């Protein structure tokens, strides 16, 4: 019975997402695009933090690298996503391999510091290597993406068409991550989160599993960064800044760690909060901080945890 409800809810959600552009003003369409992009970003971090127990505080590194690789190739080489997206994914995965090689030898607070240090290093490179990265201005004038070749090429130049592209990437990412977390590999990641020593005793080379998770998470974060850059048409150094890593972690904690729905809800709340709060006060960041503190203190399992508790309480 519960299964049927889940499928029904899923179909309604997808249908709602498809008709959404016809029902709202373009401002809300932009918000939805951002929420979908940040959902991919937050889900990718959850694979590390929620499923594998790796508290990465440098997830912006992959997001920002994705943004810059996309801007650089779209401005200089091609804006065809059949080329740019694979490049972004390969680039972010390689970066994850390098950072992971060092960071995954540590754990806990040291892992957090090392990942953050790598991201900050990339941030300072983006600021200072201005010939390539545009310095503190970043790379502007990134065109909207094209798909296909020759006569079958299609440009996503309207906001509506870009929304559908992002929605498609979001659904693909969600399906892929869902498959990963439900698979034997996903079970192994949860085993590492729960008790890495015992996993080794069972014969698991846990370093390799953590590395695989880190690379997959990095690749999806890169994709999210690239999608944002096509949307804002601008790769900014802020995408690499530690505050970006912090923001995506807040999304996870508010939404609920260790689920895939949680990151989506968290991304929605954190992206939408400033919009609604700023009509009452300019100090929306104080409200954001309060929301975060309240969740950490009273709902450490996030919105998903609150919903579960509400469902379980009902007779």
């Amino acid at each position, binding site marked *: 019975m519960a299964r049927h409800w889940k499928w029904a809810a899923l179909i309604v959600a997808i249908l709602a997402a498809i008709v959404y552009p016809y029902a709202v003003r373009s401002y809300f369409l932009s918000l939805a695009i951002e929420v979908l992009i940040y959902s991919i970003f937050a889900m990718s971090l959850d694979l590390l933090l929620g499923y594998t127990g790796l508290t990465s505080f440098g997830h912006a590194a992959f997001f920002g690298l994705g943004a810059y690789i996309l801007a650089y190739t779209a401005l200089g080489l091609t804006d065809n996503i059949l080329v740019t997206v694979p490049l972004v994914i390969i680039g972010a995965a390689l970066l994850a391999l390098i950072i992971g090689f060092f960071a995954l030898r540590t754990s806990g607070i040291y892992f957090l510091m090392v990942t953050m240090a790598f991201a900050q290093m990339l941030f300072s490179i983006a600021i200072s290597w201005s010939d390539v990265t545009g310095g503190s201005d970043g790379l502007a004038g990134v065109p909207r993406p094209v798909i296909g070749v020759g006569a079958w090429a299609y440009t996503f130049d309207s906001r509506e068409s870009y929304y559908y592209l992002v929605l498609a990437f979001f659904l693909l990412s969600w399906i892929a991550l869902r*498959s*990963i977390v*439900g*698979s*034997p*590999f*996903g*079970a*192994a990641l*949860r*085993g590492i989160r*729960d*008790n890495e*020593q*015992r*996993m*080794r*005793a*069972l*014969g*698991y*080379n*846990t370093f390799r599993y953590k590395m*695989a998770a880190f690379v997959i998470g990095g690749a999806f974060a890169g994709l999210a960064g690239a999608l944002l850059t096509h949307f804002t048409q601008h790769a900014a150094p802020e995408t690499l800044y530690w505050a970006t890593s912090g923001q995506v972690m807040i999304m996870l904690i508010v939404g609920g760690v260790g689920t895939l729905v949680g990151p989506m809800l968290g991304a929605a709340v954190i992206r939408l909060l400033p919009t609604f709060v700023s009509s009452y006060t300019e100090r929306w960041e104080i409200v954001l901080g309060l929301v975060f503190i309240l969740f950490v203190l009273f709902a450490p399992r996030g919105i998903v945890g609150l919903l579960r508790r509400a469902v379980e309480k009902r007779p």
Partner: protein
Amino acid sequence: MSQVKAEHLCKDYGGVTALANVTLAVESGERRAIIGPNGAGKTTLFKLIAGEIAPTKGRIHFDGHDITDLPVHTRANLGLSHTFQRNNLFFDLTVLENVRLAVQHHRGIAGQVLKSVSGYSAVNAEAESILARLRLAAQSQQLARNLAYGQQRALEVALALATEPRALLLDEPTAGMSPAETIEMTRFIESLPRSLTMLIVEHDMDVVFSLADRITVLHYGEVIAEGAPGEVRANPLVQEIYLGAPPSVPPRGG
């Protein structure tokens, strides 16, 4: 050929000698018990063989390979499995998920990402049959942390067995169990195939004498006696320091 061999093993902890020059050879299929007062170095010897810690000096061989420098997971993949003295489970996973992690690894499918875990019916069936053998079938959907202590102890053994080892190191398998559970666990260990080599650290002398083919006695990090249960029981030195008479030196903690 001896399957598990330790040669001149030493382990110092910052000047304190936990193990001094221990040499030990366990034949394939043998059931060897390691006994000794608290602080004799039994668990240290175990951790060295399992690979949880590295020796200060000496070599360890398994099936003729020198495994001294191999990490824990490589030793496990060679067929050397171990349990922990204190329950070391996946406490936030269900009992079935615990055992499935061991089964899916030795079946070589732990890297699969496309199919859901529940789709691997052979893995699930194998995990469930191991749980049934340890009388945990009814608890398979419970979280490991919610099991009774004795059941957690049984799951500890189930995890090590599910890797299908050729040699099994059991670190106090019945520690903290009720007398009834102890008898049940002893019978279960007895019922394991004779081809499985076993090293057992145990405090309960009834368990030791009913399971072991041979017994090694450690005292202050050294082997002071080794032989068949009858020989060890008759050894006056062993009687004096361990079995009957009160120890002349107070035992060290741990």
